[in-house]
């Protein structure tokens, strides 16, 4: 596997429960994101909002490969990862509302979701900035002989950053348990990969560091899950880091301010034909693992969950301004 980008052809074998679980997870993300966009237009959510619509299969497939003890480092496009990791939609929504019942008391917002109970270390809005942190989390695990994986998500834009290369080198040099997941959606904000990279085949970047690399169809949750499960198992076994490229596409703009001048409508339409949710629905129905009734019920339940999250966020409260300067330094003096 070293040095070569290998296409994972294998799909996880699924039963009804697992197939429907994956579908539900993706639907939860899709509906949360759609609701977030709506609430952004209604000015209930402000700041930057980066939607994950179209890329759901990546976060959902990869999270299946992790245990609760593993750590996750994500980017500013991380609502989906947070939700798939097990954070509550209410805590996420309240955070985006800037309320103190949000997962970070409203101090982080959409780009900085954190959660200690699921070891979710953000929410990093500096492209490439999370990679060294993932390396350090994995270093701590290795030094303490813990068989845990640190899973680090980043986009194709990050591979141009020095921190990507420095982190790949360190993780490989020290044989650290990091699963690097590159969500290649073809654009670094609005600049296509071909305008950014002399080598656009991203698995070749990993080869330069002798890091095992796999490239998968990121619009197929089963393929992502199978590849991530194998990669995470390798990483957990102590064979060093792994680089997993998921070829995906974001259906919406980079953020809510994006006029999308850099890509054609035809290209977007073409990718929407590969919608990971429709894709999985098709596969499950074909195998008679999902009925239209199942789907309708699932949609109703997801809609209710998102409605409740919004109602929760609406009812939440703002942190008093007197608390402004809290959390700059720890309130406990010693560690």
């Amino acid at each position, binding site marked *: 596997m070293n040095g070569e980008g290998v296409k994972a052809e294998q799909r996880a074998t699924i039963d009804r429960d697992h197939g429907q679980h994956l579908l539900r997870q993706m639907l939860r993300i899709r509906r949360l994101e759609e609701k977030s966009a709506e609430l952004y237009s209604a000015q209930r959510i402000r700041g930057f909002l980066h939607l994950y619509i179209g890329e759901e299969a990546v976060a959902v497939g990869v999270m299946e490969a992790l245990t609760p003890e593993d750590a996750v480092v994500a980017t500013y496009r991380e609502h989906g990862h947070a939700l798939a990791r097990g954070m509550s939609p209410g805590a996420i929504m309240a955070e985006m509302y800037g309320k103190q019942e949000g997962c970070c008391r409203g101090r*982080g917002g959409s780009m*900085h979701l954190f959660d200690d109970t699921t070891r979710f270390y*953000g929410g990093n809005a500096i492209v490439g900035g999370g990679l*060294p942190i993932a390396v350090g*989390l994995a270093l*701590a695990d290795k030094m303490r002989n813990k068989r845990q994986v640190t899973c680090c998500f980043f986009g194709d834009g990050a591979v141009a950053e020095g*921190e990507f290369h420095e982190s790949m080198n*360190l993780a490989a040099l020290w044989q650290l348990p990091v699963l690097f997941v590159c969500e290649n959606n073809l654009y670094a904000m609005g600049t296509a990969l071909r305008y950014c990279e002399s080598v656009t085949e991203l698995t070749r970047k990993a080869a330069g560091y002798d890091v095992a690399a796999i490239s998968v169809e990121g619009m197929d949750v089963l393929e992502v899950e199978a590849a991530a499960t194998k990669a995470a198992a390798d990483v957990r076994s102590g064979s060093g880091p792994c680089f997993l490229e998921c070829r995906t596409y974001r259906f919406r703009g980079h953020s809510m301010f994006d006029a999308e001048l850099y890509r054609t409508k035809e290209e977007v339409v073409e990718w929407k034909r590969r919608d990971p949710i429709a894709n999985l629905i098709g596969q499950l129905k074909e195998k008679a693992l999902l009925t239209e009734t199942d789907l309708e019920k699932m949609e109703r339940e997801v809609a209710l969950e998102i409605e409740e999250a919004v109602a929760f966020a609406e009812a939440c409260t703002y942190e008093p301004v007197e608390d402004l300067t809290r959390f700059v330094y720890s309130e406990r003096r010693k*560690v």
Partner: protein
Amino acid sequence: MNGGAENTRTITYREAVREAIREAILKDERVFLMGEDVGHYGGCFAVSKGLLEEFGPDRIRDTPLCESAFVGAGIGAALGGMRPIVEIMTVNFSLLAADQILNNAATYLHMSGGLFNVPLVIRMATGGGRQLAAQHSHSLEGWYAHIPGVKVLTPATLEDARGMLGTALEDPDPVLIFENNTLYNMEGELPSDPGPVEIDRAKVRRQGGDLTIITYGGSLFKALEAAEGLAKEGIDAEVIDLRTLRPLDNETFLASIAKTHRGLVVDEGWRSGGISAEISARIMEGVFFELDAPVQRICTAEVPLPYAKHLEEAALPQVDKIMETARKMVQTNG
């Protein structure tokens, strides 16, 4: 190694820092040292010489030249339950890790609403005076002191070189320690069993009634030398060692100025927008009506530090300049 007094020994600043690292590693299994050339080379300034042999490559960890990644890895390791000491060769190189220090180490606690603190210690050499020119000589500790979320320590004395590291490692938040490179060879007496030092307060290093010289780091000894010279002329200067630039201990220097009515700031950083400007502003805000003379500042000239010895000396704060400025200030009557 035995010094003059009983239970003390002669030690250099470099050895004091090494002892502090060694003690921390022995005391706490979560502590390790990581940085460029800290292991096989023995440390760029020979601070960690011998530690690799004693503790092995896991805890004395040589890194590639990747300041951003190994500082970030320090942050991650701290989040993961370790207590890393990250060494950056010089403050100029720390700029390659500025993203990790400012955007991550200083922000995680706040962005996460108090969920994730970063108990990381970063040590680095700072300062000029060794003809190392414009990419190895600057004093940027004042820049770092601008950032909420980090603490900035500037140990000048042997006692602080020995004691601050342990206290910093007990701190739940990121602490940056700046070691002025002209101090590593400084030798003096230290108790054989030195205790920890607190890091929250400035210290009066010399008592005096005529003016207050506020300084830190390598400039402390220039200020003390100037004060001795001034004493011979009948001018009695109080010298304050700030020790910590963030959080800045206002109380100590404001109380001193309320007594002496004159304040002179000596800072190896540049003047414009520097920590000296901050100290001056706090004096204006706090004890303006106590002043008998305008606050004065002696800082590094606003040039990238030059190589040539005579030019570098002219650029840095020096004893004669401190004495000359102090004389003029004392002659001014409020």
